[in-house]
Each structure stands twice: as C-alpha cells, then as structure tokens.
C-alpha cells in the first residue's frame, strides 16, 4: 500500500470562487500539504505557475477573462521556458461529455466533476503521481496521452502513423524550470 507524502508537494489552486478555494485548501492541508498557492483567475495562476513551479495544478474551468482551459493551453506549450508537463486536474461544475473531451484535448491530465469529495480528489492526485502517462506531441496537440487503454479489439482507423522511430534524449524541462527559479 502506498501513501503520498503531501508535505513534499507544491500545489497551485485556481478558482474564482473563494468558497471553493477554501474547500480545496482545507482538503489539501488535511491531506498533509504545506505549500498550496491560490489564484482567483487564470492570468494570475499562469504567473504563479512560472514563479513557483508547482508539482500539481488544480483549476476550475469557468473563470472571468482567462479561464482554466486557456490556462491549460498556456501551460502546455512545449517550447515554453517553464515546465509543460505538470499534471493538471480540471475541477469543474461542467459535467457534459463534450466538455470532458474539450478539456482532454486542451491537455488536462484528470477531470473531476463537482461536487468535490475528499476521496475523489485524493484518487485523482494519487493517479497523476502513481500513473503518469507519456506525452504526445502532434501538429495540433501537446499533452498527456489521450489513450488511457489499448484495446486489442479496436477496429477503427489508426490515426497515428508509425514508420521509423528515433529516440532523442533531452534534459528534463522540469529540472530546468526548477533551477531557473
């Protein structure tokens, strides 16, 4: 059985609703987190993201001016100076299938529909820590692999071309981001 050492994790919480921020802060501190940075809009969150280099981002979707979807898209810039790989948990009142798809295509790692519960939040955090997915970069997408499972019985068209593969090693962007603080 595994436990998470929350006191070693740095969180960035972005929600325009102060009550929801209070709930999230309470839950994360109760789990054991010490470093929880808060923002009430996406623009401030992006600044804080660059400044604090959090390990995990938890963001609402609907916010004025600069929403959680735009925040995700800004973080998931492969050429950016910051870390484009941080897990992003989208915590939102939106619960429709097409919203989940849009969030996934923006590069969100996990989607959690409100109402929030301690158990659901803990499970999402555990999942992004224990089961990170590789990142995929195409002309139109950069983010966690959207294929969570492989299905041997899949009979639709194969959208990813194979061909030759080349393995290129690069320095970790996370370490680079951390070292530049």
């Amino acid at each position, binding site marked *: 059985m595994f436990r998470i050492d929350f006191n070693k994790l740095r969180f960035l919480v972005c929600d325009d609703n102060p009550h929801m921020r209070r709930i999230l802060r309470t839950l994360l501190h109760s789990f054991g987190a010490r470093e929880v940075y808060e923002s009430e809009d996406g623009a401030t969150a992006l600044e804080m993201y660059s400044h604090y280099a959090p390990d995990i981002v938890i963001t609402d979707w609907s916010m004025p001016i600069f929403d959680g979807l735009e925040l995700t898209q800004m973080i998931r810039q492969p050429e950016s100076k910051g870390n484009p790989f941080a897990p992003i948990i989208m915590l939102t009142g939106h619960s429709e299938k097409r919203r989940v798809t849009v969030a996934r295509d923006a590069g969100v790692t996990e989607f959690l529909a409100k109402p929030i519960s301690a158990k659901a939040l803990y499970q999402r955090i555990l999942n992004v820590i224990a089961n990170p997915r590789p990142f995929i970069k195409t002309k139109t997408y950069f983010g966690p692999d959207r294929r969570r499972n492989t299905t041997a019985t899949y009979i639709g068209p194969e959208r990813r071309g194979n061909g030759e*593969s080349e393995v290129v090693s690069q320095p970790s962007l996370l370490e680079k981001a951390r070292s530049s603080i």
Partner: protein
Amino acid sequence: MANDKRDSLHVETFRDHHVITQPNPLRKVLRRVSEKDLDDPVARAEKALASLSGEFKNWMLTEVDRLAAAQAALLKQGVNAASRDELFRAAHDIKGDAATFGYPSAAAVAESLCRIIEHAPDLAQVPSELIVHHINAIQAIVRNHTRLDTVTTASELSRQLRGVADEFLTRVNRDRPEHLEAVLAPSIAPGD
C-alpha cells in the same frame, strides 16, 4: 552520467507524432506503508470538511444573493454578453458548490438554469418566468433548508423545473442538432 540519464526526456519520433516519456518526477513522494497503517488522509480531510459545515449556509446565502444580483442586472441592462455571462457563472458556481455544501436540490435547479442559458438560441426570448422560477426555487431551497419537510419538496421542485426546462430546450433546439444532442445527452463526467 547516471544522473543525466535519470533526468532526461526520451522522445520517440514517429511519422506524425512524438511520444515523450520523462522519468516520473513525483515518484519520490510515494511511500510504501504497511497494510496495518492507521493513517487515513481521506478520513482526516472529510473530518476537516465537516468542521467547515457550520459556514456552508452563509456561503450558500452569499451565492444566492449573487445569483439574484445577476438576475437584477440582466433585467436592468437587458441581455448582453456581460449580463449573460455573470448570470451563467453565478448559476454555475451554485451547480458546482451546492451539493458539497449539502444542498443537492439547489445544485440540480442551478444545473437546469445553466442549461437554459447555455442552450437557448436567444436568452432574451426565454420566457422570463422560466428563469425567475429557477432563481426563486434556489432561494427557497437554501433559505428553508433546515426544515425536514422541505427535502422532498425541494427534490420534487427541482425535478419538475428540469422537466419544464428540458421540454423548452428540446422544442427551441429542434433545428439545432448540436445543441439538441447536448440537451438530451446524459452526464458522463467522472465524479467519485
């Protein structure tokens, strides 16, 4: 060097995509514990959440006041992008928060109101009573929450309002297949 290998990204390049794998930087925060370990972070967090519950009624009243103010602004200014967005955000926050705060019926009514705002072709053409009834229902559910006999009434009220709203949205979106599909689709988003 060993460190270089551990800290590096591996990029597999294919014809039309790259697969990027990096060593898990968060693995170090996972700690193996005995099955007999009694520490339960979820239970601890639930207890902390319960300790906040005394504030939930006031928080809900604040949310309800914000919704009423958004409606008043809509009536005063007419429907424009700002008044529509604020009404939606106020309703959407209640949809997301109310169940956590112990008001699931208010969340259900707020969800119905959000669907009206999102899927009506023209909010100015929505019968004003439909919006007013939703807002009044949310206010009544929150203000009378402590009365035990209101629980089933609130549930029935939210169910009936959702029925009326869905009937309206199905009718006005009959020639808008994308919206009609969204109106009729079940919620599938992952929660617990």
